[in-house]
């Protein structure tokens, strides 16, 4: 009998737990440890943040789902992993600490939102907002609706949306938020009362942390830069890329651009995505030594089977992790945001002042789900006495990004971006790094329908309802 412990109950953790339970016999035990009692469908928080979806529609209680599937659930925060002694030290919200033993461990803890990485950033500092979790999305919504009231009184407001750190990721979520604000204000007849601004660390508009996308369109090869530029032109959104936000104050951001120039931009309302780091869990060896620096990269993401340490210009598709197994402890895996990427896909830039500005690769949603499944099946392999046989690197993985541009099922829209592979492979596809036959970009009402369908479909899947495994990750 084996005991598999999954840390985290987001896309990666939930997918891993469901597949483990499906594939393993009843003699094996599966335990999920999460500090949150509910699953949150993060992609729909862009709608919560503009008041177009009730927060409870994005969530469900985890305990009944796990009970139905015979999965143990411990609501607690993982504080320490002891890989030699094979246990996780967890802390409940009451401060009670207990040891949870494991035979196999899957770290799917998601991101630590590193607001302190940028001075004054985030809802706690009171200067900007975030839509990265349900609490932040609700606060963002309330603050946004206050601005709407000002606009209704005839005042003009400046809205700033983008990335709040030189190394931040999740440009797609910020893009959805800014376009949903545009659509919401248009529907309220208030669009002329707002200046909407985009500020990001991307090397070019539409980079999205994926090095940009190219797709065939109308007989030409179109770049995602042209695609997003077209969207911003249509919606009258001001933009500034190649920019690192260094400090946020009430109503003002301080930034540095690629040329090393410093500047300030004023705003009335800002939603700025923080840097993502690995969740703060210590790795302790059998002698009580903290081995976190050996197990993780400097940002706290767990090292797996990737080829780490190469400069960006030398990185190849084959360097990306495939099994997500720790090189130091074969019974530990990482899934979703928790694993350390081998580098960025977007070209990094260092300013003359030494500031590194790089749009990091997003590893959320579809990628998290796929990796969650891969690690679960690899753990099953090991329990069955085999080596991990399931391999799916991000350079062999497709991505489907349905970015909402307006929620309405009647007049909304979404940008539907399908690409293969997620990480460009210039050996297989020398021209653009991706297969142009499999890659596409388009805007339309169909995307809005698809986005809403995905919301219902994935919540259904994450609940482990009948037929859940038929729905692709």
């Amino acid at each position, binding site marked *: 009998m084996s005991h598999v412990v999954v840390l985290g109950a987001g896309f990666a953790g939930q997918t891993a737990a469901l597949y483990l339970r499906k594939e393993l016999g009843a003699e094996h035990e599966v335990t999920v440890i999460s500090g949150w009692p509910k699953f949150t469908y993060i992609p729909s928080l862009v709608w919560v943040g503009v008041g177009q979806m009730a927060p409870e529609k994005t969530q469900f209680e985890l305990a009944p789902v796990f009970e139905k599937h015979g999965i143990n659930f411990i609501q607690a925060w993982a504080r320490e992993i002891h890989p030699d002694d094979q246990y996780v030290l967890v802390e409940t919200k009451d401060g009670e600490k207990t040891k949870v033993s494991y035979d196999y461990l899957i770290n799917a803890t998601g991101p630590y939102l590193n607001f302190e990485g940028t001075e004054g950033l985030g809802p706690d500092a009171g200067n900007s907002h975030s839509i990265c979790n349900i609490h932040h999305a609700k606060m963002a919504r309330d603050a946004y609706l206050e601005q709407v009231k000002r606009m209704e009184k005839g005042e003009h407001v400046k809205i700033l949306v983008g990335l709040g750190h030189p190394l931040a990721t999740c440009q797609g979520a910020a893009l959805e938020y800014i376009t949903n604000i545009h659509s919401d204000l248009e529907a309220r007849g208030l669009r002329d009362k707002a200046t909407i601004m985009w500020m990001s660390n991307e090397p070019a508009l539409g980079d999205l942390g994926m090095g940009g996308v190219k797709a065939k369109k109308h007989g030409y090869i179109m770049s995602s830069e042209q695609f997003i530029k077209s969207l911003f032109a249509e919606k009258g959104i001001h933009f500034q890329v190649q920019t690192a936000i260094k400090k946020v104050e009430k109503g003002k951001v301080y930034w540095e651009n690629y040329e090393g120039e410093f500047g300030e931009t004023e705003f009335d309302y800002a939603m700025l995505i923080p840097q993502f780091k690995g969740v703060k869990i210590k790795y302790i060896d059998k002698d009580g030594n903290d081995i976190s620096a050996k197990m993780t990269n400097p940002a706290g993401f767990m090292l797996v089977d990737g080829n780490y340490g190469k400069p960006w210009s030398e990185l190849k598709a084959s360097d990306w992790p495939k099994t997500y197994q720790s090189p130091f402890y074969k019974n530990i895996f990482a899934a979703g945001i928790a694993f350390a990427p081998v580098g960025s896909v977007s070209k990094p830039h260092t300013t003359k002042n030494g500031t590194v500005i790089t749009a990091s690769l997003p590893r959320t949603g579809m990628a998290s789900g796929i990796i969650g499944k891969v690690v679960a099946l690899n753990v099953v392999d090991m329990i069955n006495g085999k080596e991990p046989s399931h391999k799916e690197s991000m350079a062999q993985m497709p991505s489907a990004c349905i970015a909402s541009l307006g929620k309405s099922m009647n*007049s909304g829209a979404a940008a539907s971006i399908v690409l293969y592979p997620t990480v460009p492979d210039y050996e297989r596809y020398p021209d653009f790094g991706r297969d142009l036959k499999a890659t596409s970009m388009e805007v339309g009402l169909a995307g809005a329908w698809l986005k809403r369908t995905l919301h219902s479909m994935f919540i259904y899947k994450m609940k482990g309802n009948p037929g859940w495994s038929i729905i692709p*990750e």
Partner: protein
Amino acid sequence: MQVTKEMAPTKRTLFTRQFKLYQLLRLATIGIKILKVVKFPPKSN
């Protein structure tokens, strides 16, 4: 900060993006495209 009119969609494009019959067709096309790339990813160039 810059704002551009470059690449702004034409009225015809905006109309087709909201034309429901056409969008129903696009929904099917995108859905099939996603399923195809997920279930049968390209094997070689």
